[in-house]
């Protein structure tokens, strides 16, 4: 009897949950009510994080839509399974489905807590949660999706024929054959991505969204509601900090995802560059194209515009150039200025980069995605990523100058044309830098075996053999950060040999996964 009541109670609970989550899609506007154990808390969060990371990976590698779908689907199956509604569910099904959906909701909210505290984290979370939502939305069964949508407060009604007549000239202009298209009228703020691409007719503050873009409408609404909610979470957070059981877990979750961070605080790696070193590093190929391009313009013009100074200056900081040296370097580079003008107008900027002025924040060098996505260079600017922002002709010139063969240059041109900027950059690294690195390793190995350091020699031999041919260092990680290029190139070859080669070895011993911090064991 006891058993029976227990069962019926869980049945009731499961029914309650299925009514609580009648659909797979979730707007996450209601807070979870069920309790979670501390152990589950972390597992749920990490599982969801794996899915979001998979999405990120797919987008960094510029997979096409179909591949991306496959990747996301596989990750979801594994870590965040969500079954669709069954036509005739057994209580067992219901229980399982309810549990899945509850976990989906809970894990979402745990990550919210973990990611709401800094603006960068919030942006990362929103971006990838939105992508996950979009994937699920597109994947949902049509009937369920329509019922779900109708229950959300999305006020987008299709326009009437009258309204349509009034703007038909404009509609036809943008959509030459639009007879069987539906249009939805929403405030333009709701579909900014479409406005930005001029993919919608905008009239008197309203955007007329074609039916084909309806999912954009829904996804954007999801995104903006998530953004607002995260911000209010962030405001509420100081109160939660008191719950000291959660804080360490949340911190560790957020850290799990933190992308490799090139803060480049001086001396971090125990070695620093000097102002005299910089110009010599460029011809050796230690700078990625975006930076060697800025460097070339800096040399030619004796000046760089603000965004260029930021991009290049922070990169130099990341290479380990200390503030004093940076001041010397920039002073020399801006050779047309008087000392007075320099110290008045530019020295501040440089100290600022190093967190010595203003809000004293230690600014991190820009990552590729930041360089590629934000702040499109305007006339006279040289910042940005050449793979993204240069003309095919000038890109080709730069690529050849960097030492790529004609064939490789063609390949790279194609990759950038297709929008695979970072892959193009990685390719350039492979063809121009990898041979030098491999040679350097062999040299180190030779030296090491001469001095009897067998472990090191073995490691090198393994590294080289692993590549199958003598000038291959194996698969290079996708370049995600200009300083990653620098680190791989500089620390991997002669120039960095004195200080860096030993580290590279140790890293390789670790399967190459170790960050620069793990080096001095």
């Amino acid at each position, binding site marked *: 009897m006891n058993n029976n009541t227990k069962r019926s109670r869980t049945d009731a609970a499961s029914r309650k949950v299925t009514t609580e989550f009648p659909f797979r899609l979730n707007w996450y506007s209601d807070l979870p009510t069920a309790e979670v154990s501390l152990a589950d808390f972390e597992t749920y969060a990490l599982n969801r994080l794996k899915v979001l990371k998979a999405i990120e990976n797919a987008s960094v590698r510029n997979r096409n839509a179909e591949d991306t779908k496959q990747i996301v689907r596989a990750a979801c199956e594994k870590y965040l399974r969500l079954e669709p509604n069954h036509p005739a569910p057994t209580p067992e099904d219901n229980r399982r489905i309810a549990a899945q959906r509850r976990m989906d909701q809970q894990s979402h909210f745990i990550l919210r807590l973990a990611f709401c505290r800094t*603006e960068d984290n919030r942006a990362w979370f929103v971006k990838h949660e939105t992508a996950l939502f979009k994937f699920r939305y597109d994947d949902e069964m049509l009937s369920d999706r329509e019922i779900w949508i109708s229950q959300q407060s999305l006020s987008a009604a299709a326009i009437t024929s009258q309204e349509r007549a*009034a*703007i038909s*000239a404009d509609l036809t*202009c*943008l*959509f*030459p054959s639009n007879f069987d298209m539906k249009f939805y009228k929403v405030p*333009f*703020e709701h579909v*900014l*991505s479409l*406005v*930005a*691409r*001029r993919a919608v*007719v*905008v*009239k*008197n*503050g*309203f955007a007329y969204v074609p039916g084909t873009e309806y999912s954009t409408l829904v996804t954007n609404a999801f995104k903006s509601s998530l953004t607002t909610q995260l911000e209010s979470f962030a405001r509420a957070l100081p109160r939660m900090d008191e719950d000291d059981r959660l804080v360490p877990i949340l911190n560790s979750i957020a850290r799990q995802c933190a992308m490799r961070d090139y803060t480049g605080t001086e001396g971090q790696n125990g070695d620093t560059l000097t102002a005299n070193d910089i110009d010599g590093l460029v011809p050796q190929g230690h700078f990625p194209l975006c930076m060697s391009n800025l460097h070339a313009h800096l040399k030619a*013009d*004796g*000046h760089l*515009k*603000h*965004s260029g100074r*930021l991009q290049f200056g922070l990169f130099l900081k990341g290479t380990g150039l200390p503030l004093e040296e940076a001041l010397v370097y920039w002073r020399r580079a*801006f050779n*047309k*200025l008087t000392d007075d*003008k320099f110290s*008045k*107008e*530019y020295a*501040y*900027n440089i100290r*600022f980069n190093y967190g010595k*002025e*203003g*809000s004293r*924040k230690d*600014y991190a060098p820009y990552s590729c995605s930041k360089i590629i996505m*934000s*702040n*499109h*260079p*305007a*006339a*006279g600017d*040289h*910042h*940005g990523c*050449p793979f993204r*922002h*240069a*003309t095919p002709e*000038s*890109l080709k010139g730069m690529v050849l100058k960097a030492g790529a063969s004609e064939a490789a240059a063609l390949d790279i041109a194609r990759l950038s044309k297709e929008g695979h900027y970072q892959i193009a950059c990685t390719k350039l690294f492979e063809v121009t830098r990898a041979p030098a690195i491999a040679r350097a390793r062999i040299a180190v190995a030779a030296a090491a075996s001469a001095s009897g350091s067998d472990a090191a020699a073995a490691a090198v031999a393994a590294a080289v053999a692993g590549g199958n041919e003598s000038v291959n260092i194996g698969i290079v990680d996708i370049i995600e950060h200009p300083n990653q290029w620098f680190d791989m190139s500089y620390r991997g070859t002669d120039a960095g040999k004195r200080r860096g080669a030993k580290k590279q070895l140790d890293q390789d011993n670790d399967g190459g996964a170790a960050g620069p911090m793990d080096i001095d064991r």
Partner: protein
Amino acid sequence: MFSDTDNKDNRSEILSQPASPSSDNDATTGKNKKAGYAQPQSARDLGNELEINFDEDDLPTKTATKTTRKSFGVNYITAAPAPSSAPLSLMLDSDTDFLALLDCFYRRLFPFREFYRWLSYGLVQRNYFQNRELSFTLASDSYLRFQSFKDGEELKHRILELKPVKIDIGAVYNAKPKEKKSIQEGRFNALERELVFDIDMTDYDPIRGADICLKCWDFMTVSIKILDRALEAEKNKKDFHRAEDFGFKHRLWVYSGRRGVHCWVCDDRARKLNVEARRAIVSYLEVVKGGDENSKKVSLSSKSTHPAIREAEKILGPIFTTRLINNQDILTSPEKYEKLLQLIPDEELKKRLRSSWENKNKRPVEKWSEIMGETQALSKKKPALAATLQEILFNYSYPRLDSNVSIGLNHLLKAPFCVHPKTGRVCIPIDQKYCDSFNPFQAPKVFDLINEISAYDSAHVGGPSVPG
């Protein structure tokens, strides 16, 4: 460059001073437009901090402020106001004491009441004026950010005291900007700001002729027309199909004092737009994109046309063929037209045009109609050419925006009715309906205004009341 020629002309005439330090500087940083003062793109990252790095344009002229020439006083009263006697130049006559002029300008002319009324927006929202950032550039080169004021009186008082050579308007924050220091970092945030646009001739350097003159103003006139149309609201209910894109009613266009225009969109909805929305609007309006590495800056679809592009084309077409093509040296020398030919994605056609243009007597208009005829004829066979004409047109005449100024909430923009420290011209509003007839060379100069006041004073009150 604009300022070089100007500086030199002016000085050799007036001061017979061969070269000036500021024209030297122009050569290196003059192009470095808005680099720092308007807050960098990543103002957010920079924690809203000030960055002292002025644009040359916006620096007070050293010669203007530091060389005191003749003593003031009677001088400008007796000197007959002769606004048009000077050569066509936008530069300030150096032999004036700019600060004394400014003092008088602020005391007698600056519209403080209207300024306060504008920025308080009917006091509908609490502390809207009090939480607004203003910033001042002083003659001493110092730059005071995060100033804020209780009311118009306090603002006036402070301006009269400091006599800033430039006043910038920033965002409305969640607290009083002057108390920023006492607020925990990260808790002081910009909430609202007008949607602003900044268009400056510097951005047109790659496509305009070397000399500067009224002809270049065509670019600004076109910009006003195109942007104003896109931002405009429904004119009247019955006429719905004439409603324009974004539906903003309150748009103020202002002459920047030198060679550009600013636009302030003040609707409630515009002020509340977040950074994303501003970025989207800018991207919607921006057609000319790309840095120096990118010679093809305009890419338009050949399959369909966005209504905003169609409307812009209606405005650009006539001006391009009747004025720009002749005035801007676009198709004159091979050096110039090679740049244009780069925009044509068809080698054979380029060759044909080149050889036909070897005939030196061909006028630009003829060359243009050749391009038009050829591309149109070919576009049926070669779809790549379908959008080429449009792309050329837009490349040479479509507004070029300084997008960072528009996007960042906490960017600053020079306030209307300031006096440009280099030219001495007042940043007066431009009525967009009559923008065709706006002539920057006739914008009032502070010098002339003060003369008029003095003349009036001496005639009416019996003596100058302006300070010496």
